[in-house]
């Protein structure tokens, strides 16, 4: 009897803490956030009014919101191909019969485990106008020093470069795992047909990596949409809001201007954008290739 009851209750006891702690900090605040987005709450006083859709209406005419969306979009558009190209290249290089794979993999992966706050600080010094190593290196090629993080032309690009540096290690490992999962027989068959390296890459490797690429595009998009620490530490959204991304703006609205309702409305919009982008990624890249199915 006890045995039967125990088996009925046990699964709930097992999943309860994990599910509770997870939903408590994700699902529940998401619901509260939607409610919050219809208020004008400032958090310092307990008083607030329901304002209906006014926060959303205001977003439509908010130039800084538009700027932050464009900046986020630009950040993602530069980051994604950069990450894909470099991590795929590294994976292809490491998938040959070279020695010291572990050693190289360690080095490429190091940025992934580095605290983003510390990485941001170090990159600030690399980009430093007066003493930075980047200006020294471009100086060797006869280029004039730049104020990388304080120039509207280069600030966002500088953060993109750091973003690529951060992300390639992990994605390289994902590509490497996918490459090692491709059956040798495809390559053998292609070799018999006289296919060279580039043909094999073009007609076997890349098509079969498509699901992996889709995964990386989606996770990198998500990562780009939530980029915050770099902007907060390196540029404070500047110069002239050229690195104000959507999350940075949400932060400012909520915790500097204390417009919680407005910030919540932006968060809801960010969520909708995430859904739409993921859907588009899926639609355009989603048709995976499966040679075995035929």
């Amino acid at each position, binding site marked *: 009897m006890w045995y039967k009851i125990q088996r009925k209750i046990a699964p709930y006891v097992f999943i309860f803490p994990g599910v509770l702690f997870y939903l408590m900090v994700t699902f529940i605040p998401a619901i509260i956030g939607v409610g919050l987005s219809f208020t004008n*709450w400032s958090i310092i006083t307990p008083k607030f009014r329901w304002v209906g859709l006014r926060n959303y209406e205001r977003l439509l005419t908010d130039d800084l919101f538009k700027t932050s969306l464009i900046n986020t979009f630009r950040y993602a558009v530069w980051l994604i191909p950069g990450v894909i190209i470099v991590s795929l290249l590294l994976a292809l290089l490491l998938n040959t019969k*070279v020695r010291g794979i572990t050693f190289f993999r360690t080095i490429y992966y190091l940025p992934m485990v580095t605290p983003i706050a510390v990485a941001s600080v170090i990159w600030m010094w690399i980009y430093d106008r007066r003493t930075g190593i980047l200006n020294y290196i471009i100086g060797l090629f006869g280029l004039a020093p730049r104020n990388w993080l304080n120039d509207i032309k280069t600030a966002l690009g500088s953060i993109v470069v750091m973003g690529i540096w951060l992300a390639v290690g992990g994605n390289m*490992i994902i590509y490497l795992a996918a490459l090692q999962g491709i059956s040798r027989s495809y390559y053998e068959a292609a070799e018999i047909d006289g296919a060279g390296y580039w043909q094999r890459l073009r007609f076997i490797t890349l098509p079969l990596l498509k699901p992996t690429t889709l995964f990386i595009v989606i996770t990198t998009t998500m990562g780009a949409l939530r980029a915050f620490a770099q902007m907060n530490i390196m540029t404070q959204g500047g110069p002239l809001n050229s690195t104000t991304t959507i999350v940075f703006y949400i932060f400012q609205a909520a915790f500097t201007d204390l417009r919680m309702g407005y910030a919540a409305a932006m968060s809801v919009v960010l969520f909708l954008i995430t859904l739409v982008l993921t859907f588009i990624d899926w639609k355009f890249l989603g048709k995976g290739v499966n040679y075995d199915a035929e």
Partner: protein
Amino acid sequence: MLNNQQIDHSTGRRHVARAKILTVLTYVALVSIGVIMLIPFLWMVLGSFKTVREVMQFPPTFIPKDPTLANYKEVFSRLPFAHYYLNTIITSVIPTVITVLTASMAGFGFAKYRFAGRNFIFWLILATMMIPYPVTIVPLYVMAYRAGLVNTYTGLIIVSLSSAFGIFMMRQFCLTIPDDLLDAARIDGSSEFGIFFKIITPLTKPALATLTIFTFTGNWNAYMWPLLMVNTDRLRTLSLAIPLFNGQYASFPNLVYAASTMAVLPVILLFVFNQRYFTEGIAMSGLKE
């Protein structure tokens, strides 16, 4: 005939030569990308041994001219650095232990039992994973604020007591364990919890190690949530202290480099000695169907 053989021979040699060139090119590419990836670390570590005069000069030096450990000592005297370390350890270790326990229990529950609501709850977690973390940060802050958790360790820790990635990973691992094994234990009189702790936990050790290391690194590196929760020196973690220190000591990058090196070192050592688990965890996150 002879002619033919000669041709074969020379194309063969050409093949070998080409393969050699390719190998060399591969190494050149791997090494040069590796150097680029390492520059920030080298810059930081080498800079931490330089004097302030040397670190501020242009053109910069790479190898410190007269290396000194003074910067490390000075960081400790100018900042409550040991205290930041302690805060970071507290807010990394406690959530990691709890997450590993809650996620592995939940993963086991989802994998090895049939119960009402299982699919719905699992689907809910899946759907919730789609919500980017910053989207919930404003309401989450409001919740913590109302609960009086701002500027407390509880407030820092409470957001990372479980993980969807952990639940999924542990579920995948538990699915591979045969039911017969669990039934055999039940016949021997083991309770359901006995099964979890005596059979599941030992069998999923590699997965638990992966989850532990991932969660720990994530907590150690956390920035956004601590930034909101903490505005007193008493609770500051390394990720909060370093950028602040950088702002205050903008003319002493040598000190900033020393502090940064110390903040990065624990996770890097953890990674270097447990690479296998990192690689497995990352590969798993990419392989899920």
